[in-house]
């Protein structure tokens, strides 16, 4: 991953410094500041906001996983909701049938996710692009069918209730505790993805995404790296689904629809493909979007008039925003951010000089 130098005076003298995640003092301060704010938030904000933030963190995990698969490895996947459902149901089933504790169910969810990743990654070895996307669609329907069958046959027609997980003997029920746990999970996922991308796997994926044939001739094991992308992404997503099950205390098949898959794809498009920060921004945007719509409608129209239309307006606005991003800013929010950055960095010039300083 090329990192543009943001300031002068940082001379890299070994490979470690070249690969480091936070190269400049500004970067380190920014991350520290962000962490401080994020950790201070639960002490200041209302419970509603804390819940919202927790939802964002859950979405971030799924978005990062999808970004890894689609944005970096270039394998399109429309079956994300199926993987979330698989993780959630694994947790639910293990809890209900075996009363398994959290440190058994979450790894089991990861294993199930990895298995599904292998199964649905196999088509990627034969087909690409559109056809691959279509084969992943089937993942949604398959998991929905299996989940519905389990719910009905075992008599949990209204869904599976999952008790809060107990860490060190105490059940985790406090909203703030969940906030910290999910924040930790999101940060861990971010670090995992960033490290994968800095390592050989990241370079292999970039090569495969650029041109598969050339990558093959260079000796990169295309098949194994594609499958690796699927497996890791699916395992992460399944763990996110498992955390979702514990957080909500509840698993039911209706929560994982095709629309959820579309939302995750929207997260990485709106955020900007090929950028982890984009995944985070996209997750933030898509999660907060319905609340923003609700707030703006409340400001414009009387509450009783809009209450019946809220969902439809949400869907319509969501589709419209997605179309706008695809048409006008295919690089997403990160693209907007970079354009803004370039504007200020290059000012008073408008464009980068040809050749020369461009990296």
């Amino acid at each position, binding site marked *: 991953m090329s990192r543009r130098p943001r300031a002068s005076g940082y001379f890299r003298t070994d490979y470690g410094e070249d690969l480091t995640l936070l190269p400049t003092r500004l970067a380190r301060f920014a991350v520290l500041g962000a962490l401080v704010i994020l950790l201070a938030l639960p002490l200041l904000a209302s419970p509603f906001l804390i819940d919202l933030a927790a*939802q964002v963190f859950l979405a971030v995990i799924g978005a990062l996983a999808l970004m890894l698969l689609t944005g970096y490895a270039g394998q399109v996947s429309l079956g994300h909701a199926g993987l979330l459902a698989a993780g959630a149901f694994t947790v639910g089933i293990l809890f209900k049938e075996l009363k398994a504790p959290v440190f058994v169910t979450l790894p089991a969810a990861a294993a199930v996710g990895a298995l599904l990743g292998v199964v649905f990654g196999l088509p990627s070895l034969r087909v690409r692009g559109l056809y691959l996307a279509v084969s992943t669609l089937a993942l949604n329907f398959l998991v929905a069918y299996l989940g519905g069958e389990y719910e009905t046959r075992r008599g949990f027609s209204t869904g599976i209730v999952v008790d809060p997980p107990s860490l060190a003997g105490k059940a985790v029920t406090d909203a703030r505790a969940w906030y910290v746990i999910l924040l930790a999970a999101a940060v861990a996922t971010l670090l995992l993805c960033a490290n994968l991308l800095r390592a050989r796997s990241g370079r292999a994926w970039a090569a495969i995404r650029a041109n598969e044939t050339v990558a093959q001739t260079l000796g990169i094991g295309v098949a194994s790296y594609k499958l690796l992308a699927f497996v890791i992404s699916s395992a992460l997503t399944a763990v996110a689904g498992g955390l979702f099950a514990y957080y909500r205390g509840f698993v039911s098949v209706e929560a994982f629809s095709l629309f959820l898959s579309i939302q995750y794809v929207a997260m990485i498009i709106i955020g900007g493909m090929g950028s982890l920060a984009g995944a985070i921004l996209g997750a933030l*945007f898509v999660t907060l979007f319905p609340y923003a719509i609700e707030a703006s409608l409340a400001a414009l129209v009387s509450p009783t008039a809009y209450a019946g239309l809220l969902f439809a307006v949400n869907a319509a606005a969501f589709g419209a925003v997605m179309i706008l991003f695809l048409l006008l800013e295919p690089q997403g929010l990160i693209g907007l951010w970079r354009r803004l950055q370039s504007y200020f960095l290059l000012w008073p010039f408008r464009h980068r000089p040809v050749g020369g300083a461009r990296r």
Partner: protein
Amino acid sequence: MFPRLQGAAIAALLLAAPAAAEDAYTIGLTGALTGPPASTYAPAADALRLYIDRLNAAGGIAGKKINLILQDDAAEPGKATANAKKLLTQDNVLMLLNASLSSTFAPVVAEAKRAGVPVLFASSVCPKEVYPPADPLQFCTTAFASTYDSRATLAFIKDTAKQPVKIGFSAMAIPLSRAEMDFAEQQAPALGMTVVDKEVIPPPTPDYTPFATKLKDAGANWVFSWAPWVTQVRTLEALRRLDWKGDYIAWAHIEAEGELARLRDGAFYVVGANALFQEQLPIHKEIAEAAKSAKVTYPVEQLTEGWIAGMVVEAALKATGWPATPEKLAAAMSTLKVDTKGLRGGPIEWTKDNHFRTRQYYRVYRWDSGKSAIQLVKDWTAFDVK
């Protein structure tokens, strides 16, 4: 950038302390006001709002108004939980109402339990926790009830059938409908009926004919369907297109009254716990007038569930007195008896152990082609809820 600005704006809105309505009873509802199942729940929420507005206009309860907060969850458990959290922690509601799909129940109930606030299920299916022995914080006014509906329907079929009954079942591929049809399938043989077929139909089916073909080929002369209205009515239409001449009975959802007139099928029975509007009882006229003056967009016959919920809310808050706390309200609700003025077969009576009702009454209607009107086939039949 843009999303961060938005986030900041929302944060500002939410961090601001909510204005406390001190001189009013505050109750909150989370419901599927929009989204695919909205056509079932949104009219009920609207009717409840209508009732409360009317009550407030007439002075409220002993001079205190009722502050009803409606939140939409679009039948998504995630949103329902967020709504519940907001209503409980920010608005400090005395009672939480749920008018949404059963998948939203567990998280909403968990939140309410933590806050010690009673939950009233109005127009959403009654969970088993309201049947004896009842959970102290869960109550239900909804008309339809799993297992009791099947019992009543099968009893009706047995009484009405003129020949030995070969019964078929039609369910939608959602866990609730399937569980109910499974239960009915178990109960039917004990009543001397032969179960010939059970169809489980996925929601987005373009053509119901294959399923109807199976029912017809199996030789069913009665078909019972307990599912969302769409499944019930399309199975019937497909069967009739196949020239099936048997009798069909289904649950009377809120669309039933309007649809009976459209279908004009003399062998189509609907069983329900609410009196249909064509009875033109005084209470029906009252509801119609109120709906007209408030310019409610839903057809008037769909407002019964919400109106009944309003009656129960009024009675419960009256019994609680002032100042009201969730504990006093839950205690008051545990010994409540509300006269439904003819909308149901009898009063809604709650006891410490039974938060559903002590007796569930059913009526059966069908379309009378001779008179071109809806005909009452069987008047109120009571089932004791144990």
